[in-house]
């Protein structure tokens, strides 16, 4: 419960930060300036109205999302990445792999529950098998024996379960610290995180529980190769938005 509360409070805090600080600077109007060589009017076919279907993602909270995106970038530069660099210096590769496997084991548990909710037998069998094998032979999940045995690793979250039962993605949402999401997946994080943290608290002693709670974001960041503004695109915000939405659409479809 602790971690779910802290997650909520973090979200609220960041939303408040976004809301309290001065609003976005006023956007100058393109129509006040001379037309450029190539305009939308000249290039886009009339039936396309103005914007492409391809890059279109429902984003009614774009203003807030962009502010959180910007905040996440600065947090990444100032806190996350330096901490990850320190972590990678202090903890050797084998230790980091063990920690990653340990957390993945909890994700597999979440997958098992969500596969059950979606009545998906094969994924349920695989993820349950993985948890059983890795928690025992794999020494509390530190060693990924199941993958070595060739058991595939499905991933299903509560967001996927909602999607399975027909809940749409809803508005695009950039979550403080975590990054791109949507309303459905963002809300879906809460039961998943609650399940993980309550099982973790039940099986671990309190000092270990606290240590691992602190390690989780570091491990997650260390295993996420994404770097803000290093993909070469001048249009990063909408590119990431489109990629995330497309990926989630496909995740739910299969």
């Amino acid at each position, binding site marked *: 419960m602790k971690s779910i509360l802290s997650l909520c409070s973090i979200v609220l805090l960041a939303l408040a930060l976004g809301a309290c600080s001065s609003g*976005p*600077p006023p*956007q*100058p109007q*393109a129509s*006040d*300036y*001379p*037309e*450029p*060589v*190539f*305009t*939308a009017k000249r*290039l*886009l*076919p009339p039936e*396309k109205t*103005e*914007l*492409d*279907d*391809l*890059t279109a993602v429902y984003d009614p909270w*774009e*203003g807030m999302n*962009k*502010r959180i995106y*910007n905040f996440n*970038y600065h947090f990444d530069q100032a806190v996350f990445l330096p901490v990850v660099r320190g972590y990678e210096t202090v903890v050797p590769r084998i230790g980091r792999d063990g920690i990653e496997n340990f957390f993945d084991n909890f994700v597999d548990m979440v997958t098992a529950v969500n596969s059950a909710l979606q009545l998906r037998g*094969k994924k349920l069998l695989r993820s349950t098998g993985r948890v059983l094998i890795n928690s025992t032979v794999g020494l509390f999940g530190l060693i990924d024996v199941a993958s070595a045995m060739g058991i*595939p*690793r*499905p*991933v299903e979250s509560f967001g996927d379960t909602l999607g399975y039962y027909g809940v749409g993605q809803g508005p695009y949402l950039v979550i403080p610290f975590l990054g791109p999401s949507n309303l459905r997946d963002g809300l879906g994080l809460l039961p998943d995180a609650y399940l993980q943290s309550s099982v973790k608290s039940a099986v671990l002693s309190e000092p270990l529980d606290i240590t691992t709670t602190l390690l989780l974001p570091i491990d997650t960041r260390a295993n996420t190769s994404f770097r*803000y*503004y*290093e993909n*070469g*695109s*001048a*249009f990063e*915000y*909408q590119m990431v938005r489109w990629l995330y939405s*497309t*990926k989630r659409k*496909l*995740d739910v*479809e*299969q």
Partner: protein
Amino acid sequence: MTISRSTQQFIAGLCALLFASLAFAAVNTVPNYNYPIKDRFAATVVGTPEEYRAKLPDDIPFKGRSITIFPERVTPDVFFYGHELLYSVALQDDAAPLIFLIAGTGASHNGSKNTDMAKAFYQAGFHVVSISSPTYNNFVIAASTTGVVGHAERDAEDIYRVFEMIWAELKDEITATSFNVTGYSLGGFNAAFVSKLDEERQSFNFRRVLLINPPVSLYNSISLLDRMTQDIPGGVNNFDKFVDRLIRAYTSTLRSTGYIDTANAGGDDFLYDTYKALNLKDEELAALIGTSFRVSSASLVFTSDVMADFGYIKPKGLVLNRYSDLRLYNDVSLRLGFTDYYHEFFYPFYKAEYPTMTRDEFISSMSLTSIENYLRNTKKITMMGNADDVILEPGEIDFFPRVFGDRATIYPVGGHCGNMSYPDNVAHMVAAFTEGGM
């Protein structure tokens, strides 16, 4: 008009094929070469599949760094993240030769090709300094003098300045026994002009220079790439449908062939698996190459327009900030070819400086042909290319053996840069700098 557009395209395609096969026949290529992908478009898209790749060390100290090139420059807020130029280094502990790597069009200092090259050269005992292409968003923002890139000599000057400033910082850290430079694609083209500039400036006195799959004429190559987007079924206005269809075909093929989660997509052989699963036709592969080039050129053109405030797609004088909605500019720039940029932005922008030059003269100055004599007489420069390179016009490949003589090595297959990670090519790259001592 009695001939339909599709017939014309068919004839043009047929001619290209015929002349292309003639061109292959005319060039002496490397014998006994077993790079596995024989289709030029597939090779360009897929690269070298994992099982055929040269074995390179996983863990080299290839570290990202940053440097301010223009301290006085006020970076536009919409590019607030780009004030410093990012680059990467892998440094030896002891004195060693140093090699500069220049990435290809739209590619970064730590993209997969530069990273693989860094591994190969680091393993061979070089200090490695890797920079992004002058056409990469961050380079345009942080290190381009004018913001309007694609100019052979101007880009070379920008790159040279970057090299000098990076070396000024590194020289207290390491000892370099010699300086060398290489690059692939546009980076290979850049390397030739950087080498020529070095003859005057002499900051480095490069010992060896290797051009990997360079274009001969920039304009010819971008025209070819622009034409590839016409292979998108229904043209660029159906770009969204094309991408959507590809993605759907891919996922449905995966589902029908077995259990693969999209969570696992994006691995080392992602492209190769996709290619095998989709069984794409050449036009579709060409459309993919064209699309990928279009996406990076759209970003570049917008970046240049903001930096130079030219009024190409963004109204001149309009100031954008980090919260501005850029979708309209994205959608507009995706519909513009690089040839449009050349004629409507690049040429008018530089015309003032070269008042007597005609458009054609200007175009021909942006080519290796314009420094042919220098290339012919400069023994330290070698090149490696592929006879079936998709960014060369039919017959253009002949330029290399004609000008470089036996300093040119032409592989029979590999498309555009598809074979750079193949063991023979990796060995060749390293040997180009180590043969006859370092």
